[in-house]
């Protein structure tokens, strides 16, 4: 699933891998859409393993042969298309919310709360997480989470780039993604990231000070014992000192 997701994000274009429009078909797009939506409904009800191509055909109100014509790769191809579609929807929703923001605090609150809301309100994803966690959880740890962080970071960086320079935007995008993943994978009592007020508190308390800390003069704080110097920060970051933004709180 995740592989499809990442290819989609990295490719971003309409040439998602699963897209193979059958020749000589009168109106192929609605069939694909019906099949993808049908599959999504089936997964929400009975999970990935429990969904057969017959179920998908029934939900899409077409024949099995029609499904195969639209998706010659069969169930795997349908699943890929479902993941691609849902990942696109997810990022579109994120883009709309983040695009409306007027300062760095808002853009973070919008992105993080929208991401949490989309993920936790997703019926099919919820079903899979409850009953087939092995399909999703591997993407939330180790090297695969690094890939997810990189893909999400690539998509969201430009939205932060309206308020921060590029290097800083990348760093903050990855950090914010990491925070959302952590609270979604392991919910904390009293912290509900689908509630923008909770996210705002988290952002004000822990994230904005971290953005400011990097812009403040390195070495202003005492270095930790045993570390020779904090004065030389990571050159990739130091090369781009950030400007404090208009949305900055005290």
């Amino acid at each position, binding site marked *: 699933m995740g592989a499809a997701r990442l290819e989609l994000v990295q490719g971003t274009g309409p040439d998602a891998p699963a897209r193979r429009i059958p020749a000589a078909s009168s109106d192929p797009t609605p069939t694909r859409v019906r099949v993808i939506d049908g599959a999504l409904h089936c997964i929400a009800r009975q999970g990935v393993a429990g969904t057969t191509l017959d179920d998908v055909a029934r939900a899409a109100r077409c024949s099995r042969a029609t499904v195969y014509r639209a998706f010659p790769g069969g169930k795997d191809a349908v699943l890929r298309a479902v993941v691609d579609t849902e990942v696109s929807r997810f990022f579109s929703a994120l883009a709309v919310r983040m695009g409306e923001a007027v300062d760095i605090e808002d853009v973070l609150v919008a992105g993080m709360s929208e991401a949490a809301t989309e993920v936790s309100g997703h019926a099919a994803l919820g079903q899979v997480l409850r009953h087939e966690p092995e399909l999703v959880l591997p993407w939330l740890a180790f090297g695969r989470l690094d890939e997810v962080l990189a893909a999400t970071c690539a998509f969201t960086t430009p939205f932060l780039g309206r308020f921060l320079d590029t290097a800083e935007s990348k*760093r903050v995008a990855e950090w914010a993604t990491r925070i959302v993943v952590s609270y979604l994978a392991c919910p904390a009592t009293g912290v509900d990231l689908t509630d923008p007020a909770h996210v705002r508190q988290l952002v004000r308390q822990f994230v904005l000070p971290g953005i400011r800390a990097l812009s403040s003069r390195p070495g202003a704080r005492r270095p930790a014992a045993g570390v020779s110097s904090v004065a030389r920060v990571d050159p990739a970051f130091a090369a781009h000192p950030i400007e404090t933004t208009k949305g900055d709180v005290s």
Partner: protein
Amino acid sequence: MSVDGPRQRILEATYACVARWGLSKTTVEDAARQAGLSRATVYRYFPGGRDELLDAVVSWQYLLFFGRLYEEVQGSCSLQEVLERGLMFARRAVLEHEVLQTVMETEPDVLVPKLTVESNRTVGLIGAFLVPYLHQHGLADGVDVNRAADFLARMLLSYISSPGHWDLGDAEQVATLVRTEMLAGVVAHGGRGGT
């Protein structure tokens, strides 16, 4: 200790099997043979059979890992030092852990759900360990100590598992990471960090 004897022996034997064949292919029979015990004895200690045995092995190794991490950061005299040493040590330990690396590569679908259960339990433990350091350092205005500890524990686990663009082998990067993405909003500015 004598009560723990066979259990420990079974765990070690199972771990040896996992190292050789992976999680999915290790059976109760393999573990019993490796431990030089009967299947019945293994079932006496692990009535849930294979599933319980594999969960127990992951739990045991996980605790060993965090036990070593705990030893490593024990002598630290400041919050920064705990976090910096912890991150560097844990990341190195993950990379050098051959069995973990192999299983992570070949059976993430089996391993990661088990590790997720463990890591969700660990957030609270790491948080509790950090609380005294937070008190010692002094918190930023309006920050609740338990919330701060929870936040730091999550971030710690996240970076250890997936450092993203950070190079946790580089002390300077780690110092920057701890200063900005972990402590900036948590501790009082000009706190008693360096005691």
